[in-house]
């Protein structure tokens, strides 16, 4: 393992401290327990809190700020944060309209946020994101995983909360965006959890992991490496099949196409993937009118990428386009 580390125990706090320092105009770091809030507390709105294991940067702390999150709770690398973090974060950002938790659908995250919600003295609701169509819902009761589509949910719900909507409306929009979003990832290499010191899984030069999760957990199947167009074709097909299974019409529908890097894939390749995916979706009658390309939900140093498609209606489009001012996603209108 070759990484920028002093020692693995201090790594998270050192990284969070650097993040807070670099974005001191926007965020404030609280330690022991760890959570990050906006520099300036928002008043009289639903407070939106997300969180999850670290290693997916800029998710979630990078999306704290006007138009997106009020606070984020970072866990250890690939490990859910704990209820004490969530409770203190909620106390810090609660602004009289309740707390909305945005939680990626993993057993650990779900249980920790669930316990926090039970202990919370405020009204709360939870949006579970489950955009990963690599995992088939009916077979495994844990259900689909939340991956890069979470960024779109955080953006849209954040916008609605900023407009003064109530808790249930925010939850409803979050659920709707999640339903209209499908993602699938592919890994070319494993990632290495710093404390473990070696790659999470073994994969040869000639193999790829189709349907990989953002922790390097295996997906659909191990496949043979092939040209990018063939890989992207399979990913696009998986997404189309998912929308069909959900009975969501795609013909002539506007969509946001997000090509997300897992941490070690160059932008050059991400744009190549965008080029192919965009053409393929267009051939199926989808109008790609919004786009996002870059490292938005990473898996440490994994090489690979995910493709996310979010079907847009006027409401989702409005909230995607609305202004946001965060360390990792800035939009001006």
């Amino acid at each position: 393992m070759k990484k920028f580390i002093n020692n693995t125990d201090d790594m998270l706090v050192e990284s969070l401290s650097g993040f807070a320092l670099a974005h001191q105009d926007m965020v404030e770091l609280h330690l022991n327990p760890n959570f990050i809030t906006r520099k300036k507390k928002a008043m009289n709105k639903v407070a939106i809190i997300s969180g999850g294991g670290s290693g997916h940067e800029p998710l979630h702390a990078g999306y704290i700020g006007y138009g997106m999150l009020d606070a984020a709770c970072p866990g250890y690398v690939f490990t859910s944060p704990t209820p004490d973090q969530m409770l203190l974060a909620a106390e810090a950002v609660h602004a009289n309209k309740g707390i909305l938790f945005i939680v990626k659908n993993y057993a650990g995250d779900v249980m920790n946020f669930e316990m926090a919600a039970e202990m919370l003295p405020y009204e709360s609701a939870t949006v579970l994101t489950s955009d990963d169509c690599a995992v088939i819902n009916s077979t495994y009761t844990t259900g689909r995983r939340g991956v890069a589509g979470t960024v779109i949910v955080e953006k849209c719900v954040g916008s609605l909360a900023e407009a003064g909507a109530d808790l249930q409306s925010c939850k409803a929009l979050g659920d709707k965006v999640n339903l209209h979003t499908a993602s699938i990832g592919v890994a070319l290499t494993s990632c290495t959890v710093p404390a473990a010191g070696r790659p999470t899984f073994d994969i040869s030069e000639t193999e790829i992991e189709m349907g990989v999760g953002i922790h390097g957990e295996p997906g659909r199947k191990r496949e043979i490496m092939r040209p990018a167009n063939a890989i992207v074709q399979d990913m696009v097909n998986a997404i189309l099949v998912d929308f069909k299974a959900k009975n969501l019409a795609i013909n002539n529908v506007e969509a946001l196409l997000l090509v997300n890097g897992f941490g070690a894939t160059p932008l050059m390749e991400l744009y190549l993937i965008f080029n192919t995916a965009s053409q393929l979706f267009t051939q199926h009658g989808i109008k790609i009118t919004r786009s996002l390309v870059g490292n938005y939900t990473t898996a440490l140093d994994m090489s690979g990428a995910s493709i996310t498609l979010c079907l847009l209606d006027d409401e989702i489009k409005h909230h995607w386009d609305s202004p946001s001012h965060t360390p990792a996603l800035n939009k001006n209108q």
Partner: protein
Amino acid sequence: MNTAFMIKCAQTILHSIVVNESTLESLDREIGDGDHYINMKRGASAIVEMQTELATLSPIEALNKIGLKLLSTIGGASGPLLASLFMGMSKTLATQTDTTEPIQNSQQSTLKYAVAFAAGVQAIVLRGKAGVGEKTMLDVLIPVSNQWVLLATQNTAVNTICQTLIQVAEQGMLSTRNLIATKGRAASLGERAIGHIDAGAKSSQLMIEAVCQLILSDNLKEKP
């Protein structure tokens, strides 16, 4: 059972986890995300570190404190699940009286703790929405809890209970090898999880074994 014994349990559990580092790491890397050892070590260390604070508490208070500490230190799914175990035990014991007798010496106390442990395991079932056969820690904890309650009801000697539970835990842990995971870390793997033991089942088995061995060796010292 007394709090001093609980602290000894925490120490022996931490030791067992550390000794089995490579086993737990490789199991979780095979069909999980590779962080189980680190999380369990952090949790057990946190309990050992709070021994001075625990020593001043009753077993009921100590178990609840242990649960809250695990909840805030382990993270992942193991945190809330193990926290539910200890907090569930504490809650059940609180509804009973006289919990100060040492577990090694009293059949009654053994039954009381067996019932409390069963309630704690039930709390895990509710939190994790899982049961036996899903390739999780419950494949160890449910059979152990059932067997413990059964043997304690039959007034079985503590040493025999411990020896039996070590075996039951081992069998439960090994049974996860041939299961498809429907809950927990390997639930997205389908048939690829077959042939691998679940890391959570392994750590649970190690903890049961460590505590049972501690009781057996303590009894050996007392009655040579």
